[in-house]
């Protein structure tokens, strides 16, 4: 299969970024919106064509989907270590191309309505294109260093977009927080890459992941060096996962994601729900053979538990948040935890690799319905000019399209058949059930919580109390409604894609089937959640308040997100600034500089003292001369004898 045209998929958004970025002042807003949409539409069309070619025309070779690579050396470190730039085409990268270009295109279209009249309209589209370029580059990366490069670039695009309303203090703080927290995670990622580079002698994914039937190759020689009882490669994988956990907002590096909601809502839909935040999942999937085979999957277990815990933790917090975007943010964190969990319980071969397939499947369906939820939330915020549930209610009367599409997305995420979320979530629970019962029950519980908080949100926005609005809310314009409808359709049909045929850990595909008992339990749990939400929030009543009062302490902790923000603030403000940085500044002034000054001052003092020697009296000079000669003579005599 000829893959050279695929390089244009990321390059077109780059070109759009440069065009809009450099001629920011000259291009009229109306035109820049069209340029952005057109660019992404071209990329999306190319991606769909590539997917069609890859899965249906080129197809399997010897029973597996082949990997196509085209690359060129970008920089040499040593004779063997180098950074390549290129594109790698395999099932998951093709799938990600579809996800990224589809969501990005929808967000571009939506933004033409949502950002209408904004002073930085052109700049906004430039940033969106920059992000799309970086994300597509990340997806297509052929080696660890290339993925790291684009990893940083998506980070900076995210920074720019969160801080888009840069005059708002909270937006600036959120942008900084997102960048610094992920940078801290990337510090681990980079060390992990360096370790892999040193011990494996390559950064290349294909070489790193090469599974030989005889059990030879890098994957099986991880035992050469160890550190604190674990193989160094395991350490590297843990550190690489630290990078992934930072980007994917896994506990305890999740604190930036809720604040990132300060960005414009289309940005939250694109970056902080559907694409960038799943980069961590993609990274683990990309290195899956390493995670699975090295030291019998030690690092993979960590992935599973971190994912499961984050999933539970975030779902609990989501129960009590009142800012609708923050509820969705914690929901995103929870669902990504799900994907991590699925990867963590997966095996490699055949049907045992169901977790891997489920994770990618959920990534795909989640991208569709979560983007839809965010865009729907954006439509609501656009109409009522507030993020808070207290300012909403009964909006179904004013916004029918938003209402229906939001409901579809909520049913999808709650796992109600036949919507997309049901199919992928079911596969995750099946995978967990087969491998680790504890994680299965965590997952099941989270499914119930998810249904509850999502319908709390839905009823709170579209039903519930009759709110008096200053301006009567109205349905969003077509540019915003179209993406909602499109994504709603996707949220219904995406579940019927036979993922197990296309995307599996060993790339061979297997026969997928529905595990009826497990599915019934999962759906039942979801329905319980929905019904509870219906009782609490459908009509205005004080049940919820009574309930939260009964759980006073726990409610407070949950509402304050278990005080993690405060903890981090304490560490950065009190410890790093006051206990490290300030003393260093003082130490520098007082001791380091002080010593240098001291030497200078001493020199002045000494020269004051000895300037009397230069008295101008001939007798003194004669005496110095004679005594000098005597000393030199003594030294010479001593040395000669």
């Amino acid at each position, binding site marked *: 299969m000829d893959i050279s045209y695929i390089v244009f998929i990321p390059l077109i958004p780059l070109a759009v970024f440069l065009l809009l970025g450099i001629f920011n002042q000259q291009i009229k807003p109306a035109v820049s919106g069209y340029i952005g949409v057109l660019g992404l539409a071209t990329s999306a069309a190319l991606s769909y064509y590539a997917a069609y070619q890859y899965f249906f025309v080129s197809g399997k070779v010897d029973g597996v989907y082949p990997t196509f690579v085209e690359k060129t*050396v*970008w*920089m*040499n*470190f*040593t004779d063997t*270590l180098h*950074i390549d730039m290129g594109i790698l085409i395999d099932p998951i990268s093709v799938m990600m191309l579809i996800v990224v270009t589809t969501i990005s295109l929808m967000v571009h279209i939506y933004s033409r309505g949502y950002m209408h009249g904004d002073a930085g309209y052109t700049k906004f589209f430039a940033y969106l294109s920059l992000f799309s370029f970086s994300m597509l580059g990340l997806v297509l990366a052929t080696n660890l*260093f290339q993925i*790291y*490069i*684009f990893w*940083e*670039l998506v980070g*900076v695009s995210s920074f720019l977009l969160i*801080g888009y309303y*840069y*005059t708002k*203090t909270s937006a*600036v*703080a959120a*942008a*900084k927080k997102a*960048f*610094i927290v992920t*940078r*801290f995670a*990337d*510090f681990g990622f*980079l*060390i992990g890459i*360096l*370790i892999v*580079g*040193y011990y494996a002698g390559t950064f290349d994914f294909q070489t790193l992941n090469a599974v030989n039937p005889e059990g030879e190759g890098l994957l099986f020689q991880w035992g050469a060096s160890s550190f604190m009882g674990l193989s160094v490669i395991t350490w590297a994988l843990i550190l690489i996962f630290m990078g992934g956990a930072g980007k994917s907002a896994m506990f305890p590096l999740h604190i930036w994601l809720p604040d990132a909601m300060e960005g414009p809502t289309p940005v939250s839909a694109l970056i902080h729900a559907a694409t960038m935040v799943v980069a961590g999942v993609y990274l683990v999937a990309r290195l899956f053979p390493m995670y699975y085979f090295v030291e019998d999957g030690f690092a993979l277990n960590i992935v599973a538990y971190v994912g499961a815990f984050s999933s539970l933790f975030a779902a609990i917090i989501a129960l009590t948040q009142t800012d609708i975007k923050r509820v969705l943010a914690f929901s995103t964190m929870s669902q990504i935890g799900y994907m991590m969990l699925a990867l963590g319980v997966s095996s490699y071969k055949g049907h045992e690799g169901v977790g891997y397939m489920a994770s990618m499947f959920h990534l795909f369906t989640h991208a569709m319905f979560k983007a839809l939820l965010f865009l729907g939330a954006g439509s609501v915020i656009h109409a009522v000019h507030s993020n808070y549930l207290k300012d909403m209610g009964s909006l179904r009367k004013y916004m029918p399209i938003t209402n229906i599409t939001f409901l579809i997305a909520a049913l999808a995420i709650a796992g109600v058949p036949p919507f997309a979320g049901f199919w992928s979530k079911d596969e995750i629970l099946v995978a967990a059930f087969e491998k680790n019962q504890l994680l299965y029950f965590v997952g099941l519980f989270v499914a119930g919580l998810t249904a509850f908080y999502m319908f709390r949100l839905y009823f709170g926005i579209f039903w519930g109390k009759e709110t008096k609005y200053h301006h009567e809310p109205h349905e969003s314009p077509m540019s915003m409604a179209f993406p909602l409808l499109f994504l709603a359709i996707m949220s219904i049909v995406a579940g019927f894609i036979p993922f197990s045929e296309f995307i599996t850990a060993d790339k061979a595909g297997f026969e997928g089937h529905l595990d009826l008992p497990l599915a019934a339990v999962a759906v039942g749990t979801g329905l319980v959640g929905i019904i509870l939400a219906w009782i609490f929030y459908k009509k205005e009543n004080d049940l919820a308040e009574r309930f939260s009062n009964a759980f006073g302490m726990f409610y407070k902790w949950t509402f304050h997100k278990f005080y993690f923000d405060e903890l981090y603030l304490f560490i950065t403000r009190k410890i*790093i*600034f006051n206990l*490290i*940085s*300030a003393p*260093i*500044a003082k130490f*520098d002034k007082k001791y*380091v*500089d002080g*010593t*240098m*000054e001291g030497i*200078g001052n001493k020199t002045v003092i000494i020269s004051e003292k000895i300037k009397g020697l230069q008295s101008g009296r001939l007798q003194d000079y004669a005496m110095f001369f004679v005594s000098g000669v005597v000393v030199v003579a003594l030294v010479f005599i001593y040395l000669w004898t």
Partner: protein
Amino acid sequence: MDILSLFVIVPVLTVLALVFSKGLKQARLISMIGSFIQLGMAINLLFAYFRERAVDKSVMLFTQDYVWFKNFNVHYAIGVDGISVALLLLTAIVVLAGVFISWKTDDLPKEFFVSLLVLATGVYGFFISIDLFTMFVFYEIAVIPMYLLIGIWGSGPKEYSAMKLTLMLMGASAVLMVGVLGIYFNSNADGGALTFNILEIAKVHIPFEAQKLFFPLTFVGFAVLGALFPFHTWSPDGHASAPTAVSMLHAGVLMKLGGYGVFRIAMFLLPLGAIEWSWFFIILSATGVIYGAFGALKQTDLKYINAYSSVSHLGMVLFALLMLNKTAWNGAILQSLSHGFMTALFFALIGMIYGRTHTRDITKLGGLLKVMPFISVIYVIAGMASLGLPGFSGFIAEMNIFVGAFQHEGMFYRVATIISVSAIVVTAVYILRVLGIMLMGEVKNDEYLNLPKATWFEITGILLLLIPMLGMGVAPLWLSDMTMDSIQPFIQGVLNHL
């Protein structure tokens, strides 16, 4: 006339022309023309170098040798390799950008440009010399105009800062002089004549005891200029008081002489000493990397922030050189180049902001993105480059350094490396702090609402520095292969003994 000596002759001629000029307009025009010619020469040299390198594999190309003082066997010996070609290009670009940034110097313009170009002459001469004595002479030529430039055209406590800077650099030169003489008097260890020619000395087996004694002197002598912790304190005060173009030239080019001297002289001529002492200086330089970054966190004066940032970034250069392998060395050279462009750009921008708002205190500034968009956007870009964003020069340099440093097994090296890598986080914090406080947020002062736009000469200066940074970061292969190729002969001595 040979192509290299022109690098010294053209600035000297420019200085002579300046002596006969009248007023600011003539002075800046002459300086601009002179610097343009130099830039042209540097670009021409780059291509000439590629052509020559294809056929000539000797260590130094375009070599010339004239006897200077017969008695001491002092020669005026010059030659270049890929590294010096790259650094000459850096110098030419920074000098030209500096001239543009100083377009409106109204106080004693003629004398200002004369000092600036004398400084440049010294730097050019330093980079083309392959004779220790010649090199040392040019080094002093570069350092001395600094005193005048800060003392006369500076701001704040300028006499104090100028004195501090000059004294510390002179103190370092004294130490260096001892080191250089130590090398010279040992250059007959194998029975030949005493010589200052570094290529000749490199063939000599200087006794281990002498290497052990003179390496730290030579290293420290150069490294003070490269802001080695704890000898960096001249840098924040010096930069804070220096006029914009001087800060640009000083941080952008002059401080690079330190790292250059370390590998060209200290490590090349005293490889055993380098191996013996590397652990000690690794501790100092790794401390400098993290210490500078933390130091920058608390400062509120833009120039202090940038000066501490330079301590951190240049600490990385010394750290990489001490790792004693090709990849790390290449990283050190790329970092020198990258930091040169980046820090010059920073100082230029700081000058522009100060020129408009009359303050460098970030707590008094705010919302500049709104009132001076062009300068602010470039500041954001420079900040991103400084924190090592891929696509800019800093990233490729740092990655070479880290990969190189990771070639050493052993707990000591690993810990030192991880400490240095952790600076990428702290760097992000202090850079974003400045961006957040100064550029974003609400405009704090209504007087700032009507500030003048960036002028054509400012934009030219900025682009001159920005384009190479981007070029290096996007397509690093040709440059990094060129420098890597030239490292081999210089590191061979060390590698033979490891």
